[in-house]
C-alpha cells in the first residue's frame, strides 16, 4: 500500500462515513467561534429547536469588530461606540450563555484573535479537525491540525451535528528547501509562494508546507505561512508535527497533561507524511532566492521582491491578466515601472492573525529600537493578537520601543486588517500592513494596502517608503 500524506491520515481518522459520490461525513474536534459569522447559526439552532451536539468542543471569543484603544476597552461593551457592532458582540455573549459555549469575553485577559488564541491556549492540538467561520482558520495547520474556514450554514451544521459534509481535497506539497537569508521571514516565504502559484493555485487542494526552511521556522512562523494558504486558494495548510510543535504545546492550558500528554505526544509524532506518500502536485522553492516581498496590487499574487518594480501591463500578452493589472494600478494610484522602494506610505499596521504574535512583535521591535517613525507617516499602530501576547510584549519592554518610536500600542483584535471597527485606512492612503489581504477596500473604503512582513513594515515606518530591511543598521 502506498504511503499516506499527513492530510490523508487526519482525514482517514475522522471519517464517520462516506457516500457513493465521494461526499463524506467528517467528525470535527474543535470549532472556534467569533461574533461576525455566528449569530445566524445560533438563530438557526433556536428556530429548529436544536442544541449543540458537544458544547465543550467549541471555544468563542469576540475579535472582528471590537475597539482597540485602551480607553474604549476599559468601558466594556459601552465602549463599542457603533451600536450595530455592540449588538453583535452582545449577541455572541448571549448565545454562548444560552447554549453553554465556552467563551473568552472581550475583556478577559486571554481574549484575542481566534487564530492567535486557539494555539496559545492549547485548544488547537495536532491531528485535530478544526473549523471556524473564518477563512484564516488555515492558520492552525501549523500545528499539524486539519483546519479550514466554513460558512455560517456550516457553523450551524457543526454545532448541531459535530460533523461536516466534505469532499476530499487533493494533496499539494510546497517544499521550501535551504535556509532563509537574514531579514527574510515566514511572511516572505508565503508571499513568494502565492506570487509563484497565484491566488487560485491551491484551489481544491490541501497544501502541506515542507522542506528545510519550513522545518526551521518557529510555530509562530509556521502559523504565518499556513494562515495565508487560503490566499493561495487552499482552504487548509499543514505543517508536519516535530519537536518544535510539541515543545510549543507543552504546558498550554488546554493541552493534555501527565500520562495523557505522554500518550498524546507519542501519537502526534506519527503525524507526518510517509516518505512514499504521493502528492498530486509538488511546488519547489529555494529559500536562498527569496527576498523580502511587497505587494503592489489588489490581490496577494500581485507581489514583487523589494528589489523589484511594478509591472507594465503593456508587456502582458494575456488580455485578462493585462486588464487585472490595469485595474489594480488604477485603484492603487501607481505607475508601471516604479521601483518598489519608491512607493511612499501614509500608514503602518502591524497586527492581524497573520503577524500579531510575540515573535512578530519582537521582529518589528528589533528594527524600531531607538528609531523614530518618519514625519510623513500619519498613523503607525501595533495591535497585539491577544491579551497574553500584549502582556508578554510589555514584560519584554517591546511596548516602550514602539511607543518611543512613535507607534500606537493598542488592545488585541482584528483591527485594521479588515477594518470592521473604527481602525480604518482612509481613501487614497497607502499602508504597509502585516495583514493578509490587499483587496480593494479591505482596510477601509478606497484604502491602498501593501502586504509585508513585520520587519519590512517597521523599516517602512522609519523611512516613509519601502526599504530593504536587510540594509538597515539595526538588522543583524
Amino acid at each position, binding site marked *: 500500500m502506498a504511503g499516506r500524506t499527513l492530510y490523508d491520515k487526519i482525514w482517514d481518522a475522522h471519517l*464517520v462515513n462516506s*457516500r457513493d*459520490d465521494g461526499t463524506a*461525513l467528517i*467528525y470535527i*474536534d474543535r470549532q472556534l467561534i467569533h461574533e*461576525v*459569522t455566528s*449569530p*445566524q447559526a445560533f438563530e438557526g439552532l433556536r428556530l*429548529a429547536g436544536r442544541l449543540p*451536539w458537544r458544547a*465543550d468542543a467549541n*471555544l468563542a471569543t469576540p475579535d472582528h*469588530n471590537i475597539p482597540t484603544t485602551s480607553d474604549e476597552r476599559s468601558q466594556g461593551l459601552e465602549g463599542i461606540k*457603533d451600536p*450595530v457592532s455592540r*449588538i*453583535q458582540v452582545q*449577541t455572541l455573549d448571549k448565545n454562548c450563555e444560552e447554549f453553554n459555549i465556552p467563551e473568552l469575553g472581550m475583556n478577559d485577559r486571554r481574549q484575542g484573535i481566534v487564530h492567535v488564541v486557539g494555539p496559545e491556549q492549547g485548544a488547537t*492540538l495536532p491531528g*485535530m479537525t478544526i473549523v471556524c*467561520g*473564518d477563512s484564516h*482558520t488555515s492558520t492552525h495547520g501549523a500545528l499539524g491540525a486539519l483546519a479550514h*474556514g466554513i*460558512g*455560517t*450554514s*456550516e457553523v450551524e*451544521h457543526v454545532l*448541531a*451535528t*459535530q*460533523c461536516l*459534509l466534505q*469532499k476530499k481535497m487533493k494533496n499539494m506539497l510546497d517544499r521550501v528547501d535551504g535556509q532563509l537569508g537574514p531579514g527574510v521571514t515566514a511572511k516572505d516565504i508565503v508571499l513568494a509562494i502565492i506570487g509563484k502559484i497565484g*491566488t*487560485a493555485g491551491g*484551489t*481544491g487542494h490541501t497544501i502541506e508546507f515542507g522542506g528545510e526552511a519550513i522545518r526551521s521556522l518557529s510555530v509562530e512562523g509556521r502559523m504565518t505561512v499556513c494562515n495565508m494558504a*487560503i490566499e493561495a*486558494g487552499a*482552504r487548509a495548510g499543514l505543517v508536519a508535527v516535530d519537536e518544535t510543535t510539541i515543545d510549543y504545546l507543552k504546558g498550554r492550558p*488546554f493541552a*493534555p497533561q501527565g500520562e*495523557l*500528554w505522554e500518550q*498524546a505526544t507519542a501519537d502526534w509524532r506519527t503525524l507526518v507524511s510517509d516518505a512514499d506518500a504521493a502528492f498530486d502536485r509538488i511546488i519547489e522553492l529555494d529559500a536562498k532566492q527569496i527576498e523580502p516581498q511587497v505587494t503592489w496590487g489588489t*490581490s496577494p499574487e500581485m507581489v514583487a521582491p523589494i528589489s523589484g518594480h511594478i509591472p507594465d501591463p503593456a508587456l502582458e500578452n494575456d488580455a*485578462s491578466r493585462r486588464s*487585472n493589472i490595469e485595474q489594480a494600478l488604477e485603484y492603487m494610484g501607481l505607475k508601471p515601472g516604479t521601483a518598489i522602494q519608491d512607493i511612499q506610505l501614509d500608514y503602518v499596521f502591524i497586527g492581524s492573525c497573520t503577524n500579531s504574535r510575540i515573535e512578530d512583535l519582537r521582529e518589528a521591535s528589533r528594527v524600531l529600537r531607538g528609531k523614530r517613525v518618519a514625519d510623513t507617516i500619519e498613523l503607525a499602530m501595533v495591535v497585539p493578537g491577544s491579551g497574553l501576547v500584549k502582556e508578554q510584549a510589555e514584560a519584554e519592554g517591546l511596548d516602550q520601543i514602539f511607543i518611543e518610536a512613535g507607534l500606537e500600542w493598542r488592545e488585541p483584535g482584528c483591527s485594521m486588517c*479588515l*477594518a*470592521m471597527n473604527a481602525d480604518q485606512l482612509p*481613501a487614497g492612503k497607502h499602508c504597509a500592513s502585516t495583514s493578509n*489581504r490587499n*483587496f*480593494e*477596500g479591505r482596510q477601509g473604503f478606497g484604502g491602498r494596502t501593501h502586504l509585508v512582513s513585520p520587519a519590512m513594515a517597521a523599516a517602512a515606518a522609519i523611512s516613509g517608503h519601502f526599504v530593504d530591511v536587510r540594509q538597515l543598521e539595526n538588522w543583524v
Partner: protein
Amino acid sequence: MKKFTTEQGVVIPLDRANVDTDFIIPKQFLKSIKRTGFGPNLFDEHRYLDKGEPDSDNSQRPLNPDFVLNQPRYQHGSILLARENFGCGSSREHAPWALDDYGIRVIIAPSFADIFFNNCFKNGLLPIVLNKDVVSRLFAEVEANEGYSLVVDLPAETLTTPSNELIPFEVDAYRKQCLLNGLDEIGVTLQEADTIREFESRWRQRAPWYFSNVRPGDS
C-alpha cells in the same frame, strides 16, 4: 433550504477575474445579525459612488452609472457571468446571502473559490463552472445582444442559449439532490446520529486528549 430546479433570466456580465468577497459585500455590512437585507449592498463599493454604511438610505445614494448592475439592459437579471476565481477571500456567507437577496440565482464562471462555492449550495444558489473559452464566448454574446437570457435546467444539467444551443454542465450528485429537494442538511445528517455517536465513542477511546475540558476558568 431554498429549492432550485430551473431558472430563466437575463445574464449580467461582470467582466472581472478574482472577484473577492469584500467586493461582493464590504465588511461594514457584516455587522448585521440577520441573514436577509444584504441585496441593496451587493457590490456596494462599485455600485455606488459614495461609501455605504449599514444605516444608509440606499435609495438616496449616487449610483455609479458605469457599473453593470446600474445599466438599464441588465436590470432584473438573475444570472451572473464572471471570470476566474469568483468568490475568493473570506468565508463570509453574507456574500451568497447578498447575491440571493438581490435576485441572483445562478453564477457562471470558469472557476470559483472553494469556500464561496460551497456556501452557494447552502443558500439555493447554483454556481456553474464552464470552460474558460465558453465563458468568453458567452461574454461576447451577452454584449452583442440586449436582453440576452439563458435557461438553466438543473435536472438536465444544461444551459440553453437564445439560439437554442445546449451547453452541458456538471453538479455533484449530493449537492444536486439537496438543491432539487430543498433539503435541510442538518436534518439529513441527524438521521445518522447513531453512526456519529458510535464514531465519537470510538474516537474518544482512541484519542481522549481531544476531549479534555476547554471550559476556561477565571483568568
